[in-house]
């Protein structure tokens, strides 16, 4: 739809623009005396057709080479080259046409083409340069503006998505079921085991701080992320006790790698909520990090069955997926697959 309306706008501009330019010459001819209607009409129609042809050929060429997508830096010198080239074309067809008209209509005053060229060549070339420069600037200005509007729209959308992800993350981190159950267990521990109660408050504080008050610095080191994951699991263990166990397999050499904040944690929380917590006998969560061919693979495995239409599994992971898309421009991936009796969630991110 957009394309179609643009073409029609393009043709409208071409026709009006060149008709107005050609009418200017017609008026010039009219005021200059020796005016002939038939000649004026031929001149007008041929001018409009020829100059539209030249510029349209340029447009076809530019579109084919996707010049409309070029940045200003790559575009300006192309335009600078295009102006004299098109000016030369303009000069050639104009001279050819004028000479032809002279030969065909003004037989009483035959002038040699070489003389005619010598006399008018430069001024026609200058006019061509002027006209083509105007045309090219108008054409590319329009496209540039259009592109800018599109890009700023896209940026706004991304920005909004990012804000939404932050907000979702906040809510996900505030997972009320987790928060209130944790508070409840801490309350219980205050009476039975004050030491553990204190520990529980420390862990919960750390998680809330990281989820809520981390500010805009979203990525953190893998080491820090693993600390958060351990805090989270320890807190869940206060609740689930021996039903929840885990194993961490992370090479120390990867400690400094940068990962999105609360990414592994989101996978682990998902594994607890939709895997271990649903099983009476509980289960073990395996967390491993691997580096391969320029990518970092963060894997979390839990016992259980993955149900595709199990929508509650959504919010946390959907939000993580969104964050990955924004942070890595599509180079990262999040997958969730069934492997035998286990569900394996994996994030793949390019190493920065």
């Amino acid at each position, binding site marked *: 739809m957009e394309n179609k309306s643009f073409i029609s706008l393009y043709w409208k501009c071409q026709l009006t623009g060149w008709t107005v330019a050609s009418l200017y010459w017609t008026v010039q001819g009219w005021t200059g005396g020796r005016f002939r209607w038939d000649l004026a009409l031929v001149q007008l129609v041929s001018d409009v057709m020829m100059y539209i042809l030249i510029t349209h050929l340029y447009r076809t060429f530019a579109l084919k080479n996707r010049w409309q997508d070029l940045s200003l830096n790559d575009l300006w010198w192309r335009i600078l080259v295009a102006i004299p080239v098109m000016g030369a074309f303009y000069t050639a067809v104009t001279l050819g046409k004028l000479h032809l008209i002279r030969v065909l209509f003004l037989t009483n005053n035959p002038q040699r083409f070489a003389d005619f060229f010598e006399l008018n060549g430069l001024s026609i070339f200058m006019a061509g340069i002027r006209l083509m420069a105007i045309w090219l600037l108008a054409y590319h200005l329009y496209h540039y503006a259009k592109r800018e509007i599109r890009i700023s729209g896209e940026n706004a959308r991304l920005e909004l998505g990012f804000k939404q992800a932050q907000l979702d993350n906040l809510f996900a981190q505030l997972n*009320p079921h987790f928060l*209130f*159950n944790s*508070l*409840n267990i801490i309350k219980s521990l205050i009476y039975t085991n004050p030491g553990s109660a204190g520990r529980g408050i420390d862990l919960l504080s750390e998680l809330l701080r990281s989820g809520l008050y981390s500010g805009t610095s979203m990525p953190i080191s893998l080491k820090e992320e693993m600390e958060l994951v351990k805090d989270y699991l320890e807190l869940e263990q206060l609740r689930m006790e021996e039903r929840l166990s885990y194993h961490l397999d992370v090479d120390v050499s990867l400690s400094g790698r940068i990962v999105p904040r609360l990414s592994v944690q989101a996978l682990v929380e998902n594994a607890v909520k939709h895997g271990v917590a*649903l099983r*009476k006998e*509980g289960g073990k969560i395996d967390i491993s990090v691997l580096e391969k061919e320029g990518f970092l693979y963060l894997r979390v495995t839990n016992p259980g069955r993955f149900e595709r239409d199990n929508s509650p599994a959504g919010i946390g992971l959907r939000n993580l997926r969104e964050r990955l898309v924004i942070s890595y421009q599509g180079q990262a991936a999040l997958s969730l697959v069934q492997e035998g009796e286990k569900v394996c969630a994996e994030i793949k991110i390019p190493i920065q």
Partner: protein
Amino acid sequence: MKTIKVVIIDDERGARLELLRMLNGYPQVTVLGEAADADEAELMIRSLRPDLIFLDIQMPGRSGLDLLETLDHLPHVIFVTAFDQYAIRAFEVSAMDYLMKPVREERFAKAMSQAIERIGGHDEPSVFVKDRGRYHLIKWKDIQLIESVENYARLWFGKNQVLFKTSLNKLEENPDCRMFFRAGRGQMFNMDFIKSILKEDNAMTVELTTGELIRLSERQATKFKNLRRQ
């Protein structure tokens, strides 16, 4: 002072301990047992017949709501949940109380005093039924007719009906259903709803105030007459 028999059902040991601690302040309460999931709880409730249960909704395996649907003798129930807004929204049941974890002492005291009053007084025996995604608490005395439908019993109360997973044989043995008379293989009716009795030779037709007509065979009619004579 009547003893109140309690069962606590929650998958987290810490959460159960917390309830036990709060119940410490009630000398009339005896905690019969604790269950960590619905299956364990079902056995415990069937064998121990508690007056009151504290019930978590989200548990591994069956949920607390699923558990209630399987019970034909319902104790007084207090839900204790961290954050189950959706489950609670599905309730048609104002008669049931729920507490939010962590539970405030005042709120707990209020729920307990209500429970004690109900249990001490004449709390009408009820049944917990899920119908089209919503939960209902129906008093047995409000049901006029029960029909057997495969593995379910269809409970008629007024113009409404719900399906409840049980058998008529089970209901006949349920002391909460004493007011029902078994009229043949597929029907039980509430004797408090009888409007008129029509004798036909040795058989009988009972008309209920809600309009249903129930035919009793000769054998059932005799049994019915004997029951009425007592």
